[in-house]
């Protein structure tokens, strides 16, 4: 069994377009949430959303590579460029070695809506053009990036709702551990547009604290009233320890545990047992005790039931050691298919820069969340190892344990 390490990261997030900007935002507790008047006009119950600037890739990618790439593919392209540079992996390396891609994504709504709108208007599929089919598929990100970067290894997309990005990294870890690949580009991407979140807003799941957008996402806080949708993309380069050492790569951390489970109950309401099982499995895989975890990056999305259940689950396992806990969703909103991967990037930045980012807007706990050691402000400290949770609709759960490399 190979050891699996992280040798590069990249990010395109509502709190920063690159690692440097994101690190500063995390440290300062900066929010990326706004009120979007367009959503209000369209008829959304909640017009709150994370927002990123649309990338401009003309001049960087030729037309054929851009035509089939939807907006979340553009975010993923930029995050992957940063990650590959960060890892010191160039075109020559990718020519000599079969690098793979396992990316998390679970929708591509906008291209479907646009192409069908054209069909309805023109009554002729010949007016749709060549790009929409590639943009419309769930596997659009892995599909496009493998062509752009000429990857020749494993190549597919992992869809597990809001745990997609985390499961992508988990599966990448298993493939490298098994010795089937030496380098895999893992990550998660999430489109940001009203078309993809309208049916989610229909569940009354979003916060309606529209008068204070930056205070709306308040995981674990007593007065939380729902999540805020968000998006972007994050890439994490996974590599076998042996390959990293062989080419003299800088090792950012080591993935030592991947735990997963399914709730087997409600399609949208979370429970406690499922997350407990996933966290326990990840610790068991890591060969670690709860006391070895210094920081938990919680899934906590600022929903009443979800945060409560996760707090109970965390307390069940970590009640004795009480590691620091924060949900970066307090700043970023719920990045959905990107979240599991971006939260690894955020936690890695914290571990490598010696601080725990705050769970902003945590003004008052409730009965369940009071049991946790929640960092309501930035805390400079050492993190030897962290655990990151991601849970999704259908009761899919993912927990990853990552630690500092110790040779």
């Amino acid at each position, binding site marked *: 069994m190979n050891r699996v390490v992280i040798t590069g990261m990249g990010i395109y997030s509502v709190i920063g377009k690159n690692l440097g900007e994101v690190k500063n935002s995390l440290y300062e507790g900066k929010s990326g949430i706004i009120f979007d008047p367009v959503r209000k006009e369209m008829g959304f119950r909640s017009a709150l959303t994370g927002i990123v600037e649309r990338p401009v890739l003309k001049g960087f990618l*030729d*037309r*054929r590579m851009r*035509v089939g790439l939807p907006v979340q593919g553009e975010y993923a392209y930029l995050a992957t460029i940063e990650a590959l540079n960060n890892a010191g992996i160039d075109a020559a390396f990718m020519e000599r070695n079969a690098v793979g891609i396992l990316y998390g994504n679970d929708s591509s709504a906008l291209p479907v809506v646009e192409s069908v709108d054209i069909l309805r208007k023109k009554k*002729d599929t*010949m*007016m*749709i*053009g*060549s790009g929409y089919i590639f943009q419309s598929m769930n596997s659009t990100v892995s599909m496009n990036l493998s062509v752009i970067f000429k990857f020749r290894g494993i190549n597919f997309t992992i869809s597990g709702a809001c745990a997609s990005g985390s499961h992508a990294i988990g599966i990448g870890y298993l493939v490298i551990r098994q010795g089937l690949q030496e380098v895999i580009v893992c990550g998660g991407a999430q489109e940001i547009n009203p078309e993809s979140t309208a049916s989610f807003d229909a569940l009354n799941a979003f916060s309606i604290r529209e008068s204070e957008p930056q205070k709306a996402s308040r995981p674990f806080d007593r007065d939380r009233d729902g999540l805020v949708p968000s998006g972007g993309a994050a890439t994490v380069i996974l590599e076998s320890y042996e390959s990293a050492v062989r080419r003299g790569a800088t090792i950012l951390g080591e993935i030592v545990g991947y735990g997963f489970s399914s709730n087997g109950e409600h399609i949208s309401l979370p429970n406690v047992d499922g997350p407990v099982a996933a966290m326990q499995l990840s610790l068991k895989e890591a060969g670690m005790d709860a006391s070895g975890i210094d920081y938990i990056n919680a899934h906590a999305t600022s929903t009443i039931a979800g945060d409560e259940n996760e707090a109970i689950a965390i307390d069940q396992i970590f009640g004795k050691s009480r590691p620091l806990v924060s949900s970066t969703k307090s700043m970023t909103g719920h990045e959905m298919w990107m979240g599991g991967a971006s939260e690894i990037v955020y936690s890695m930045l914290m571990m490598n820069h010696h601080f725990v980012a705050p769970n902003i807007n945590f003004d008052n706990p409730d009965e369940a969340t009071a049991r946790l050691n929640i960092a309501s402000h930035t805390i400079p400290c050492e993190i030897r190892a962290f655990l990151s949770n991601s849970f999704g609709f259908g009761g899919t759960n993912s927990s990853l344990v990552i630690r500092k490399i110790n040779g």
Partner: protein
Amino acid sequence: MQNEEIIKRINQLLIEEIEIDEVQISPSADLKKDLGIDSLDFVDLFVIIENNFGFKMKAEEMSDIKKLDDFYNYVIRRVHSN
């Protein structure tokens, strides 16, 4: 529309919409080998031509169109027959 106008417009669309390098544009240029226009680009050309010249290209009519000159003549013929 005059033939010269049609040719000029086609060139403009190839440069702006399909992003062909202006330097490569010449009547004897092979669409695939010199201009790099592949089958997927043809799909986009269908849309561009209908939006700009008001007629529908047909896939069956493309088999004899190899050079840019062939394409100019095809479009001119279709514009005048409409």
